[in-house]
């Protein structure tokens, strides 16, 4: 009986986690995240701070990586303090997300290719001021480093964005 109960708890908690993950993915697709410059990254990278929303704090942190790549491709980001500049999105076509839906679905799926370009700068340590409770949800700010040169090159090779020298 005890074993059955433990199994039930395990299954229901897994289901709850995957439900929360689905909700977080939906939030990403609905642009429900904020992204801003967090400093000048090393050559070929962007250093950004991503604010993600979720009822589950852990999901908000892991979703930050996905949101960072999503933001750099489609949204661009605002500047921060002096020296921290706003950047335009990698794509100039506002409809590219729906036009290449199939590509982006597999690109952003759990453990998808987006993970290749991203690393968490704070190694999971979130500053107390970057963790807020907004209503029933957490709003968590994570600093993420994205290899934007590699990301751009791969998107160019996949025909998603045009390269600067294409046509010449």
């Amino acid at each position, binding site marked *: 009986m005890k074993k059955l109960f433990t199994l039930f708890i395990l299954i229901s908690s897994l289901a709850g986690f995957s439900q929360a993950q689905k909700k977080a993915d939906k939030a990403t697709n609905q642009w429900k995240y904020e992204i801003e410059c967090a400093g000048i990254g090393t050559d070929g990278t962007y250093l950004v701070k991503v604010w993600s929303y979720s009822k589950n704090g852990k999901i908000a942190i892991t979703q930050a990586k996905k949101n960072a790549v999503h933001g750099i491709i489609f949204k661009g980001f605002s500047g921060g*303090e002096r*020296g921290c*500049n706003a950047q*335009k999105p990698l794509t100039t076509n506002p409809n590219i997300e729906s036009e290449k839906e199939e590509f982006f679905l597999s690109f952003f799926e759990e453990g998808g290719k987006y993970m290749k370009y991203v690393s968490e700068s704070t190694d999971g340590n979130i500053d107390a001021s970057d963790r807020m409770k907004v209503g029933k949800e957490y709003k968590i700010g994570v600093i993420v480093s994205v290899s*934007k040169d590699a990301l751009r090159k791969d998107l160019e090779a996949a025909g998603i964005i*045009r*390269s600067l*020298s294409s*046509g*010449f």
Partner: protein
Amino acid sequence: MKKIVNIKKTLALFTIFFVSFAFSQAKKPTIMIVPSDVWCNTNGYMMEFDNQGTKVKIPNYKKVFQENMDIKTVISKINTLMAERGFPLKDMESAIKTLEAESAENNLTSSKTGAGIAESPIDKIKKVAKADIIIQLTWETKQVGPKKSVNFILQGIDSYTDKQIAAAQGTGAPSFSAEIPVLLEEAVLAHVDNFNAQLQKHFDDMFENGREIIVRIKKFNGWSGNLEKQYDGQDLSVIIEDWIAKNTVKGRFNTSDATENTMLFEQVRIPLYDSKNRATDARGFLRGLQDYLKNAPYSIPNKLTMKGLGQAVIILGEK
């Protein structure tokens, strides 16, 4: 049997046409970074000379590249980043050296009969380091107490239309410890992507609406005719205007000046490829007008000169 041969021929022709279309590439503009006049002036890299009583200051680029290490850091950094994007830049320092070497070679070259290399005064004037797009570079170091910061400006100018096609500017974060080359490198990293995004927009516009060029029509003194001469009841200037309207992309151009001796057309949008599907430029485009005027009923001999990809002049009356 004959039918099969015909189909094969059509198929081969179609393949040739398709392959040539698919692989034809537009003429790639050259880009060069040039230190701006204001940077040269504030850093003491100007030459002064007397132009008929008026003192004129011009930048001494050779001195800049021989003496300033910071500019080498910035140019080489931008060059590396642009090369990674498939757009290696023309290096101004090397262009100046090549011009000097070529000039020395021309002076020393002679044939067996003693003839030297022909060079008109206009050839001499045109021998300068040039590119289709000039990136003007300016920065200024600011110091507040022990803190240093860099104010950085990149301006991309189309050499022919004089239009600013891309720009990025801003002040970096103040630092106690970082040295100027480090601050400059940071500034380049912070601005080059926004600059390239605007450059990309300019190229996208060019592929959609054609290359923007400037066209000038002039006449030689010795020619008896002028641009008001009538052909079939129409002024020559109107005939030229009609040809340009017919041959530009969506008929887009502005007639900025028109007198009996000269005409100036700006914002002329020309197709990137000619009727044979070859990449074209201002000179290639105006060759059509040159032939049109040279042939009957106009029979006007004329001379076509060019300046890079985006400017060309037709001088009427003589070759």
